[in-house]
């Protein structure tokens, strides 16, 4: 689908505005709480990309030769590819030679106990506890700072039940057979432009392996932080759930406020074997740029889950509030009979943010089922698009899909768009798609206010209600964070 994207069209001509809900829009100021920079000595590559850089990264991480070759093959293929033309995104060309492909804190940490206080404090400030106290939260965390993982909590407790949760670098060293078997098996290196780039230069990420029959005893979580300037973050995450295994994985992301655009091009691969269950939740709050559209992260991510086994299930849930540009379609390949894919999404854009996000549900096995719930909220001068593909292949008899996309507009200068693609080749399948676009109704606002709720709180209340279906899918701690994020984004909404 991404290959087929059209060139950006000029905006339609404007007809004179009518009086409307400017009062809601007016003072819509956004605060970005995660915008600080951590002062720590780093080890960075100078900007630029060539085979030497790819080799350097691989060597630096002490990777085996097959891994170096894998990266180089991806790099050479990337050179033959053309950067995609964006459908609805306005984006200047990216100069890949001005980006640094590696940045890491200088010191190496043997265990979490060695991690310096500045770093621990950084994550603490972001609400991600890495120290002992973390145990109370009952969530194991892998913290990725710029290009590397700085530490993973609860590793021992997880190892006791056979669960492997570590950084990708460590997995390549300690579990090469698993990495070799699964890496690139869901998102091939040549899949798309940014996936190829990621395959060549990825620096770290999380690795999760849940062995047969094991229900992971706690939530696993990775917290991604871009800190250094002029760097790109290219993480790679691989989650494997063997037969009958289940896991819930959470991911959070932030970056400092800088007036440059930084590139984040991640690849996430999920593999679910027979009866396995993977729940992958994201709260994405990369720096969105300022109110004039200066700076912010380019978030170009390839996320795909492979329901390889019968009766397997993969659920993607995402709350996207950050990034200058978001381009991601967490997808499910429903290969196993009776497998299930779900996608629940809230995407909020404001100021000059652009989001083009959605999912692909590829039904291959019999009686496969998918559900898509996408909620888009556009404010300011932002553009927010849902783009999704539901494909029913010939053999997918009994396949079912239900899709619901709702868009909410706050203000007159933003756009909300819906681009579903429905392709059905099996006459035993049923596919249903519904979409609506509206603004917060004046009636709803007045109703809330006449009960004593101030305008700003009423907006937040109604938006929260609009997103409720998706928030319900998030683990409790994340649901709270997600709601706070939305409130923050809508703070000062009315004057």
């Amino acid at each position, binding site marked *: 689908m991404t290959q087929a994207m059209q060139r950006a069209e000029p*905006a339609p001509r404007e007809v004179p505005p009518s009086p*409307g809900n400017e009062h809601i829009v007016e003072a819509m100021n956004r605060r970005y709480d995660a915008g600080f920079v951590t002062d720590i000595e780093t080890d960075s590559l100078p900007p630029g990309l060539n085979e030497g850089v790819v080799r350097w990264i691989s060597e630096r991480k002490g990777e085996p030769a097959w891994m170096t070759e894998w990266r180089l093959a991806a790099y050479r293929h990337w050179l033959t590819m053309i950067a995609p033309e964006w459908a609805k995104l306005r984006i200047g060309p990216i100069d890949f030679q001005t980006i640094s492909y590696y940045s890491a804190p200088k010191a190496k940490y043997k265990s979490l106990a060695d991690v310096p206080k500045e770093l621990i404090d950084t994550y603490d400030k972001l609400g991600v506890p890495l120290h002992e106290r973390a145990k109370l939260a009952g969530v194991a965390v892998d913290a990725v700072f710029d290009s590397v993982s700085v530490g993973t909590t609860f590793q021992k407790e997880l190892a006791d039940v056979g669960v492997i949760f570590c950084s990708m670098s460590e997995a390549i060293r300690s579990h090469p057979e698993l990495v070799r078997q699964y890496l690139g098996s869901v998102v091939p290196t040549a899949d798309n432009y940014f996936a190829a780039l990621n395959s060549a230069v990825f620096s770290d990420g999380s690795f999760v392996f849940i062995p047969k029959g094991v229900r992971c005893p706690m939530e696993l979580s990775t917290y991604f932080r871009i800190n250094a300037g002029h760097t790109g973050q290219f993480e790679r995450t691989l989650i494997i759930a063997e037969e009958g295994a289940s896991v819930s994985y959470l991911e959070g992301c932030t970056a400092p406020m800088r007036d440059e655009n930084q590139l984040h091009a991640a690849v996430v691969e999920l593999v679910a074997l027979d009866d396995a269950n993977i729940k992958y939740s994201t709260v994405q709050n990369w720096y969105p740029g300022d109110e004039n559209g200066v700076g912010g992260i380019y978030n170009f991510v390839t996320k795909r889950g492979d329901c390889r086994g019968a009766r397997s299930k993969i659920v993607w849930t995402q709350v996207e509030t950050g990034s200058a540009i978001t381009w991601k379609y967490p997808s499910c390949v429903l290969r196993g009979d009776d497998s299930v894919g779900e996608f629940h999404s809230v995407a909020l854009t404001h100021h000059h943010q652009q989001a083009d996000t959605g999912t692909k549900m590829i039904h291959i096995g019999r009686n496969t089922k998918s559900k898509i719930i996408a909620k888009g909220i556009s404010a300011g001068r932002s553009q927010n698009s849902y783009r999704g593909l539901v494909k029913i292949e010939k053999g997918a008899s009994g396949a079912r899909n239900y899709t619901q996309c709702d868009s909410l507009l706050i203000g*007159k200068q933003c756009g*909300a768009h819906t681009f579903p*693609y*429905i392709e059905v080749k099996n006459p*035993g399948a049923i*596919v249903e*798609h519904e979409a609506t676009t509206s603004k917060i109704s004046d009636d709803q606002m007045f109703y809330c206010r006449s009960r004593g709720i101030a305008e700003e709180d009423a907006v937040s209340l109604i938006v929260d209600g609009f997103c409720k279906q998706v928030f319900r899918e998030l683990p409790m701690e994340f649901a709270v964070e997600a709601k706070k994020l939305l409130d923050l984004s809508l703070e000062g909404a009315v004057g």
Partner: protein
Amino acid sequence: MATGFLEPLIAEGATLAGGQAGWLGRVRANALAQLARDGMPAARSEAWKYTSLRALAQRAYQRGDSDAAGRSIDAGLLALPGVDGPRLVFVNGAFRADLSRIEPIDGLQLHTLSQVLESDADSLQGPLSRSFDDAADVFARLNTALAGDGPVIRVAAGRRDLPLVHLVLIGAAASTELAWHLRGIIEVGEGAALRVVEHHVGESGQAHFGNLLTQIAVAAGGRLDLLQVQNSSESASLFRRSEARLAADAQLEMRSIEAGTAWLRHDLAVTLAGDRSRFVSRGVFALRGRQHADTRLDVRHAARDTACDIVWRGVADQRSRGVFHGAITVNPGADGSDAQLSNKNLLLSAQAEIDSQPVLEIYADEVKAAHGATVGQLDEQALFYLRSRGLSAQQARSLLTLAFCRIAFDSIENTALREHVDALLLERLPEEVEEFASEGAPA
């Protein structure tokens, strides 16, 4: 890059444009230059995502039919029950005065493009100067370069209660495969009202490529009801583009019944340019064999309080493929827009395919916009109900399938015409539908 399909047509177009001066010559030359430069749309063209042009690009057609004037046409072919008013008939792209019926009616002009180009060419400069700058519009460019004739229908301001105008486009058998290009103009004056049937028929076996581009303008407070009954030969190919621009308080109601052709592409582009203008579209395609039909709607709300109401149904059987693209754009400031689109499809065979792509692009906030699309099968409960009342499974399926399609034309007031369309579709519905629903259903 020219191809087997384009090359001879471009060459003939060049001969045609050679002697032409003035604006029309420039318009045609420009279209030819664009065609020569861009050729056929690239395989990745989003507008042609579900319709491959590869096979067509390799076929060569002869432009125009030099024998068109003398071909004998069975009167039954062009008859349409309930329709006996003025008639304009084109055979293989050539106007046939002998088959047409043009009586003088106050306020209604029925002409051909070639007549108007001779008598009052400047009155056509506006619509004919339309330039297609997207390489995806290859057939519209061809039409611009090559169409020398077509129907011109104009209604004077305030004229209403006019008889139904019957426009017939016939594909007649010929010794070679032909490509014909017609340009239609329909202009409805202020406060006027007009009803038109655009009727495509063909002698069986002919495999011509037809290209009809119709430009519609409805002035303030005017209304056009356009019924498209497309029952061309099942081996013919047809590209049809219907473009409309509606002024304030204007209304366009279209009903499109697509039954014939091996290959069909219908572009339907409507701009709601005036406040409170309204577009209603009902359509259905019923496909079998290896038929391929691609309907591409593009509605733009460019003024306040405009409305569109779109309901399309699709049925694909055997090895056919049905494509529906329905895009609605609401421009910035087009407050009060109300946009509704529904597309439902029945997929009846394991070798058939349905692709549906409803699109909303919204740049204004005072809007009500919604779309829905489904692909599925007949309701098992309804089937059971009918069978429990004594119908055979096959009868029940045909009946329900017809009912499913009927939404496209059940509001046609002309009973004879409505029943004709009904019969046309019923005849095309599968006689023996395999029982797919039970095949893959969970136990």
